[in-house]
């Protein structure tokens, strides 16, 4: 289904136009909050808004109903201007039970819209959430927020009278009621959801009917119930024309791989060992065997990376995705690819750590591990996507660099990018850059470690090529011949060559885009998934008249050639990261600039407002 942005439905109550809104749906794991959020995202997308989303689910599979740790939520920001983040504080919170209220209330703005499903606020749920008294009776709630206590469960069941479903099945439709209601409040079109229901439940007409009725009932409840005095509109954003789709980071990664597979015509061997939040890349790829992607669910991460090194030796594209603990286990395998100078790509979807840490939460703390987490001098290329949709391009880019330079590439995505979604302008695959795969077949003058001048790449040889039989391995190699060598000067040379090869990848980096003035009080430098929050914060500071600019690094090793020059044009440099200060150390060491970090390691994206505050503080302190 493809179609143009829908007209927003006509509303009969007064409609106030907003720039943007931040909405969070929260409830029990079993309440379908992820689905609700995704559908509301689709509706907003159809309405032409720019969007950013933040799903948030518990580490437990199905935690017991009503518990705090079982709360699942989905947040999105949609707007008529560029939306960079899912938003810091909520304009609207839908809490389907007491636990959801307890966990999320503190994020709601004062005066924000609070929608509560009253029938869930009964003894057992209150106990489980640890409420000694029923918060519905708490006057403070009504004073601080625009609180709407609605018996969503009963209203849903009423709307479904006559349908041949049992009570439990009917109860399960209540998220659609909530969705309908919020759709009305923000005047987003429910057509795409109606459509989706039709398709999804094509084989179960009763359920389709029930969800449809619940959705409409919620919508009409908003329209007719006395309690809502007004509704809101958010105008379409000015977005580049073209065909859009909603894209999550993990799917974008997978599709980027498929694009490269098709462009090169090479088979892809994808070695995987399931790990949150990387597993979805495996799930996605395993559905696309038509692209000659061979997914190998290995016995562990070591085997997964081993297999792709073997595949690369065989002349295929070898890739794997993992998260922090898995990357630790892959160190030795990656190091083998460094020594054997074989092209592999390892995606690290960073999560909270150390150790098992917070498996379902986001973090940016594997940069140092990616740069240095191997024995001895073992350089690899490190790049990172900026947004969910950028994961498509970065995956493609990683493969392009790996095979061009015969070098391992580590891509640092994160839990936020992986699961977050944004409206994504679908690219024309024809416009993607070429991927330069040339297998050597000429025996004359062949040396396994002779190098191409521009890239220092050694030749890639497919076994099966007559006359090019050769042996490589993890022991130090003699320059040119690739034979085992313990010669001191050769070792020193090879250490330098491996480093220089990675440095040459700087040729591939386009000039850095500066968001703001080319010099001034402060430069904010970011990488990875904080792109949105930083950009939003810097734009806000700029609007407030501050002399601030930002740059975003997609290439972390090697760094952009123009970076040192740019850093020196600003009085101060601020590096916000979801870690204890990793890129900032790299920049200080490399350029001797007195960059300072802004670091919050909370398992969640940085708040735009916090960065704004840090910017202001630094700009002020410098006066």
């Amino acid at each position, binding site marked *: 289904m493809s179609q143009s942005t829908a007209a927003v439905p006509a509303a009969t109550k007064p409609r106030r136009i907003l720039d943007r809104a931040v909405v969070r749906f929260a409830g029990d794991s079993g309440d379908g909050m992820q689905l609700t959020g995704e559908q509301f995202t689709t509706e907003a997308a159809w309405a032409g808004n720019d969007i950013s989303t933040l799903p948030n689910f518990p580490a437990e599979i199905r935690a017991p109903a009503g518990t705090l740790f079982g709360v699942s939520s989905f947040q999105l920001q949609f707007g008529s201007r560029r939306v960079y983040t899912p938003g810091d504080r909520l304009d609207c919170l839908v809490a389907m039970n007491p636990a959801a209220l307890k966990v999320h209330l503190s994020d709601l703005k004062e005066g924000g819209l609070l929608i509560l499903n009253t029938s869930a606020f009964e003894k057992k749920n209150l106990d489980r959430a640890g409420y000694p008294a029923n918060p519905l009776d708490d006057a403070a709630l009504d004073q601080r927020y625009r609180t709407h206590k609605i018996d969503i469960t009963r209203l849903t069941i009423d709307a479904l009278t006559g349908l041949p479903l049992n009570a439990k099945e009917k109860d399960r439709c209540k998220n659609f009621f909530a969705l309908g209601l919020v759709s009305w409040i923000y005047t987003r079109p429910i057509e795409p959801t109606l459509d989706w229901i039709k398709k999804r439940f094509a084989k179960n007409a009763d359920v389709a009917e029930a969800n449809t009725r619940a959705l409409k009932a919620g919508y009409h409840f908003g329209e007719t119930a006395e309690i809502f005095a007004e509704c809101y509109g958010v105008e379409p954003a000015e977005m580049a024309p073209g065909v859009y789709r909603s894209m999550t980071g993990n799917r974008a990664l997978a599709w980027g791989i498929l694009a490269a597979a098709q462009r090169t015509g090479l088979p892809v061997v994808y070695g995987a060992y399931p790990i949150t939040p990387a597993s979805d890349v495996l799930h996605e790829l395993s559905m696309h065997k038509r692209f000659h992607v061979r997914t190998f669910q290995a016995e562990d991460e070591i085997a997964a990376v*081993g297999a792709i090194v073997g595949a690369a030796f065989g002349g295929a594209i070898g890739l794997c995705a993992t998260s922090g603990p898995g990357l630790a286990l892959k160190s030795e395998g990656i190091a083998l690819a460094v020594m054997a100078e074989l092209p592999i790509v390892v995606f690290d979807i960073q999560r909270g750590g150390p150790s098992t840490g917070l498996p379902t939460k986001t973090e940016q703390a594997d940069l140092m591990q990616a740069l240095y987490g191997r024995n001895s001098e073992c350089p690899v290329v490190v790049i990172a996507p900026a947004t969910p949709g950028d994961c498509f391009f970065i995956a493609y880019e990683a493969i392009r660099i790996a095979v061009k330079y015969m070098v391992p590439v580590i891509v640092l995505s994160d839990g936020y990018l992986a699961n977050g979604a944004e409206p994504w302008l679908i690219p024309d695959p024809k416009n993607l850059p070429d991927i330069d795969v040339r297998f050597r077949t000429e025996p004359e003058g062949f040396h396994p470690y002779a190098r191409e001048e521009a890239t220092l790449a050694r030749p890639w040889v497919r076994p099966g090529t007559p006359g090019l039989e050769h042996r490589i391995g993890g022991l130090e190699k003699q320059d040119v011949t690739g034979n085992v060598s313990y010669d001191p000067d050769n070792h020193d040379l090879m250490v330098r060559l491996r480093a220089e090869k990675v440095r040459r990848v700087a040729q591939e980096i386009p000039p850095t885009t500066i968001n703001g003035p080319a010099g001034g009080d402060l430069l904010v430098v970011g990488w990875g998934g904080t792109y949105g929050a930083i950009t939003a914060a810097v734009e806000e500071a700029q609007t407030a008249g501050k002399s601030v600019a930002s740059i975003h690094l997609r290439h972390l090793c090697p760094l952009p050639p123009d970076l040192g020059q740019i850093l020196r044009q600003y009085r101060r440099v601020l590096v916000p990261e979801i870690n204890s200060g990793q890129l900032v150390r790299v920049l200080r060491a490399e350029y001797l600039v007195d960059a300072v970090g802004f670091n919050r390691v909370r398992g969640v994206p940085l708040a735009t407002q916090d960065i704004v505050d840090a910017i202001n503080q630094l700009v002020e302190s410098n006066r």
Partner: protein
Amino acid sequence: MSTGTNAPQVRYTKKDFESDQDVRWCPGCGDYAILSTVQKMMPDLGVPRENIVFISGIGCSSRFPYYMNTYGFHTIHGRAPAIATGLRLARPDLKVFVVTGDGDGLSIGGNHMLHVLRRNVNVTILLFNNRIYGLTKGQYSPTSELGKVTKSTPMGSTDRPVNPCAFALGVGATFVARTVDRNIGHMEETLKRAAAHRGAAFVEILQNCNIYNDMAWGILYDRESKVEHELRVEHGKPLLFGPADARKGLVLDGVKARVVLASEVPADRLWVHDQADVASALVLANLATPPFPVPVGVLAQVEAPIYEDLIADQEKRAVSDRGPGDIARLLTSGDTWTIR
């Protein structure tokens, strides 16, 4: 041979498989005999040299690929089975050998060995069992006997050893054999059969490390002792060993084996080797020496689907059912909207 794309253009000789690298094992090491036997059997595979790949881990044994004039990859400790699996997935047209040791393949690499065997990846695995870590200069290995005194166990090892063939059978290997470095003929025969097997073939080669564990398999070296202790298993033949004048045999009481004088039992009472019967191979592999002899030969060979064949089948089916992948179509599939 499934993996030979074409019959080779030229008839190879052993020499064609000798690389230009100096062989760096200790003089007298059992690895020399294995190398020479493998080089000798290569021409008979009927596979073009360029389609053959040797993958190894780390250890004296794992230096093997350097000496073979084929494609080769001396990888990292214990991981060769995983690397070979990836290679086979990428290139099911290649004939892949894995060379490993008792440390490389059963200590650090035990898990990959387990999984390559159960998946039945089409690789021929040669495990050189010298019951010692050679390259690191003489620590005991997972196959060293309990009580063994080595550099790391001055008062004797406290680990019960693992039996490589029993392990392989226990995890579902489809081809399991054992042979001896000093028995060139038997080794060649066994390796040929292993190389011809469709699926993961596991061969334990009893190998002498004359520096750190000399004569670990001495009972199979000395002429007289060998007659007494070597049990050649052959499919369809009764299990017999010992000198011609006092030939002994194995009989089964239920699942329990017993040694008898062959002359003293009726011929049909003797245990006849059935390589297709994994359970009986397990019984055979688990026989303790002494009092039982050491079985050598193909203990089991059964048919099972090959991992990468099944993957290739799915790929073919996916393409034939829904056409080849098309990224442009995929990108615009599902929910999209247009901004004008």
